[in-house]
Each structure stands twice: as structure tokens, then as C-alpha cells.
């Protein structure tokens, strides 16, 4: 295996140094980054122009430069970092609970006979209920504390993980399953060595989706209920008619979403390093 890899790397090296370097091997990362940066710069310039030219009033949509100004002020404020910490705490705790519960419940439903049939309609009934519709319940139960944020975050992201786990378990190769059985592997061993590796790609997709959904719900909860965090800060800025500050915070939430997505993809790639979808170059 190692030899094969070495040989491949040598081939690539050779190709890169050769007289006609293949375009795709050398430049994709750089080109993509450049294109991405250009796209973002263009977008920012458009935003700046839209309010400078007066297509929308700059009272309600200030130019990017003013938002950037407000952002810098915001970053220098201790309270901003506390709010960021509060938001991330709600997000991380909620996501951890949802992922653990989603995987456990998913595997149990899949392994225990008939449980899937019994729960299917209930899951399909509960899953489409928008988490934000539970805000009144959260407020009644927990007021404006972290726990009401957690309720919303967990409810929204749990289903993402659960559904993906169920699909993943369904995708187990029956031949592999039968083989494991005929070799006398017990339930736990079959979960560990057959079911889990087959389901993992699905589970990781669920986790990635859940990570994004959890952030959305954490900020929504803070914004609507007033639980401490970035969302609440946005609400205060809004109530105070501090428009650039509000957009600056909105930008922060966007960046946060971006980082979380990149992070989730990295975790996914690490966890699935062995899987065909990741080590695509040796696919047959």
C-alpha cells in the first residue's frame, strides 16, 4: 500500500516538473482561492455601490465601509466576546446533545426489530415541526436562559442526525451483514464492525447539517427570546436604531457559519479518511 502511494507521489512530482505540466494538478487550489476572493470582493463592492448610489437608503443599508468601521469597534468591546462565547456555548452543547442522542436513538431503532416500523410515523410527524414554533414552549419552561436555547437547538439538529443515521443503517450491505453473522459475530461486534463503518458517511453528513442548523437556531433563539448571545446583541442594536452595528453583528454570524462549515467538513474528511468518497484518487 505504502509503495503504491509513494509511486503515485513520484509520478505526480515528475509530471509537475515535466515540460507540459498538467493544468489541474498544479493550480486548482490557487485558482479557486483567487476566484473566491474576487467573487467576495465583487460582492462587497456591489453592496457599497448599492447604498452609495442611493438604490437603497444608506440609513437602512449602510455602505460596507461603515459596517466595517462598526465591526472594528465591536471587536474591541469585551461584551462582544462574552456574547460570542454565549452563542458558541449554546451551539456546542446543543449540537453535542443532538449528535449523541441522534446516533444512539438511530442505531437502537435500526437494531431492535419492529422499532423502525413503530416509530416511523411519529418521527415523520415530529420532524417537520419548525423548531421556532417551540419558542413559546421554551419561554414558558425556561424563560430566557441557556436552557431555552438548548431546547430549540437540540430539537432542530437532532432530526438531522437521526434521519441520516437511519438511512446509513439501511445502507448496510446485506452480504457483509450476513457474512458477519455466519462468522458468529455478536450484535455489538456487528454494530461496531459492519453497521457503524457503513453508516458513518451518512452520520457525518447529518452532523455537518446539524452543525449549521444548530448555529441558526442558537442565534434565532437569542434574537427572539432575548437569551444572552450574539442574537440578543443584534436585537439591542436593532432596537437602538444602531444600523451599522446591527449589520456588523450579522456579518459576524455569517463568518461564524462559514467557519463552522469548514470545521465540520474537516472533521468529516478526517473521520472518513478511509472511505472511498474521500480517498477518491484510488477509486476503481
Amino acid at each position, binding site marked *: 500500500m505504502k509503495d503504491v502511494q509513494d509511486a503515485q507521489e513520484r509520478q505526480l512530482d515528475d509530471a509537475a516538473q515535466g515540460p507540459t505540466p498538467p493544468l489541474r494538478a498544479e493550480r486548482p487550489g490557487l485558482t479557486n482561492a483567487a476566484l473566491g476572493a474576487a467573487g467576495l470582493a465583487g460582492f462587497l463592492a456591489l453592496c457599497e455601490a448599492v447604498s452609495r448610489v442611493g438604490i437603497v437608503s444608506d440609513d437602512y443599508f449602510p455602505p460596507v465601509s461603515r459596517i466595517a468601521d462598526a465591526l472594528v469597534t465591536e471587536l474591541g468591546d469585551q461584551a462582544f466576546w462574552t456574547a460570542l462565547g454565549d452563542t458558541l456555548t449554546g451551539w456546542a*452543547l446543543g449540537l453535542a446533545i443532538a449528535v449523541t442522542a441522534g446516533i444512539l436513538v438511530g442505531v437502537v431503532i435500526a437494531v431492535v426489530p419492529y422499532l423502525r416500523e413503530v416509530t416511523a410515523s411519529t418521527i415523520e410527524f415530529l420532524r417537520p415541526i419548525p423548531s421556532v414554533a417551540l419558542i413559546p414552549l421554551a419561554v414558558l419552561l425556561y424563560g430566557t436562559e441557556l436552557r431555552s436555547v438548548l431546547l430549540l437547538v437540540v430539537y432542530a439538529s437532532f432530526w438531522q442526525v437521526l434521519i441520516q443515521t437511519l438511512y446509513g443503517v439501511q445502507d448496510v450491505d446485506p452480504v457483509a451483514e450476513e457474512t458477519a453473522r455466519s462468522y458468529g459475530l455478536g450484535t455489538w461486534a456487528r454494530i461496531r464492525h459492519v453497521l457503524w463503518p457503513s453508516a458513518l458517511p451518512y452520520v457525518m453528513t447529518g452532523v455537518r447539517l446539524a452543525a449549521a442548523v444548530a448555529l441558526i437556531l442558537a442565534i434565532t433563539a437569542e434574537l427572539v427570546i432575548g437569551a444572552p448571545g450574539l442574537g440578543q446583541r443584534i436585537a439591542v442594536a436593532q432596537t437602538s436604531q444602531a444600523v451599522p452595528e446591527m449589520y456588523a453583528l450579522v456579518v459576524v454570524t455569517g463568518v461564524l457559519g462559514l467557519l463552522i462549515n469548514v470545521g465540520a467538513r474537516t472533521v468529516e474528511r478526517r473521520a472518513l479518511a478511509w472511505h472511498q468518497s474521500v480517498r477518491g484518487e484510488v477509486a476503481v
Partner: protein
Amino acid sequence: MRRLLICVAAGAVFVAATACGSSDSSGSGGEDKGSGGTTTLKVGVIPILDVAPVYLGQKKGFYAERGLKLELVPAQGGAAIVPGVLNGQYQFGFSNTTSLLVAQSKNVPLKAVANGVASTAKEGADFMGTTVKKGSPIKSPKQLEGKKVAVNTLNNICDTSIRESVRKDGGDPSKVKFVEMPFPQMPAALDGGQVDAACTPEPSLATVKAAGGKSIASSFYDVDPNLTVAMYFTSQQYAQKNPELVKKFQEATAESLKYADSHPDEVREILTTYTKIPSTLLEKLTLPHWPAEPDRASIQRLAELAKQDGLFKETPDLDKLLP
């Protein structure tokens, strides 16, 4: 991967244990502790200028000298504060008078304990104005007939008082169409022509005026020049159990209100600590009036108008509600 999972599982168990196990934390604070020690009181407030006196009073030590420490928790409106007070998460809360009247008419066990904020008693210079955009043909409340007016909550203090403005101007209030919209969005909605008029308290009022808009009526003033617009309240249960603490809170709040009323500069300064009102607007704000006591006659009047508008079936019992 396995280590990652173990971490996740351990984290989840930890959270479940702390999150579900500690429901006692919400009830802490606010038991009578006799003389000496300091009692921490959680007060649910809305981060707007109306509550500046308690922030100022806290800073000035009016609460501390009575052995009280306030933890002011900003929340998004009465919908979050009322349940918070009822389930003991907050000991006190801030709410507009109409919401308290509606709650009382439904026998929700609330008790107003101190005045919150009142109309300035100056027509044309109140902290809430019914505003129209620059160049609007609407010049008087009567012309709102058939027009769309933005209020923050339907069937609440805004529409009741705007209806009264229309009525006093000789118009038919039933012909005004009200739409619901948060205060901060109103200036943009007026400018964009989505609504014809809006119920704008400060700082939305100053924003509208800065954009060239005009106030066509001081609707709180039209209900009563001294209208008690909002009050601090607690649950009846808490008031019965902790009469001493409630009394201290009342005294300290009355002192804070009086102080805020006579020190507008300090009010503007304290606003920068818990709101983000831009300095350009800060100077232009019309500050409300903060009398030490609620004005019973004005609340009575508000209740009559609200009854007329069909906000409640049972007339609220002011003796039970007011301090």
C-alpha cells in the same frame, strides 16, 4: 474517531446533568433574608430608554443602600418577561400597562409594584408619536381613516391610543387598518411606503424625524396627559411571601424615577451603557416623564378605552393590580 465520540458523549452527559438537574437555580435570589445581607433581585427589562431609571438607580446606589442588588436581564418584550416573572425566574418585570390590564382581566396573578414610565404631559413633545413620512398628505389623525398604521402589537397600547387620537379628531377609529411590526422596522417601512403611519416611540421617533418625517399626534397624551404607559410588576405569590423586599424595591424605584426625571443628562449617559443608540440620535431623543407613582386615573381611562376596543371581556380589577 472513537475518542471524538467519547468526548461528545461525555459532554452530552455533563450537559444533561447540569441542564436538567438544576431547576432550583431559577428560584434563587429574592427570599427575605432579614436585615444585613444583600438580596439579589432579577428584573426582566426591555433594553429601551423607558427603563433607564433602574439602571441609573442601580449605579447611584439607591438599591444598594436598601440591601438590594439588581440583576437587570434584557429580554425581548413582555411575552418573555411575564412567564419569567410567573415561574420565578425573575422577581420583577417591566411591562406596558395595557398588557398588565389584559393579564389582570384574565386573572393572571400579577401585581404592579412601581411606576415604569409615563407620557410627558406635553402635546407634540411626547416620547411616542404617531408619525408619517416626509411629504405625506396625512396631516391629522382623522385622515388615518382607511390608512395602514403600524403598531408593535395588535390589540395593545398603541392601537388603543391611536384610535383615541382619531376619535378626538372627529374621525372613525374603526376605519383605521392596523398592522403588526416591530418598532425598529417602522422608520424603514414608513419610508418605503409599506405603511402610511406608525406608532413610534423613541428612538424610532427620532429616526423618523431625522429622515424628515412628522408626528401628527401624541397618542399617549390623547389618552391622558399623564398616562402611565408601563409599570414594574411581580407575581402575587412573590408579593405575598416577600412584602419587605417588595417594599424596598418600591422605595428604591420611586427614588430612581425621581432622580432620572430631574437628571436628563445622566439618563442620556446611562443609555450608552445598555443600548447602542448612536450618539447622533442620543441628543435628539425626547425623554419620557418618570413620576414616582403610577397615575390611577390615567390607567382607569386606558382600561375604559381598551374595553371599548374589545381587548378584554372582563373589566380588569385595578384594586387587585395596582400597588
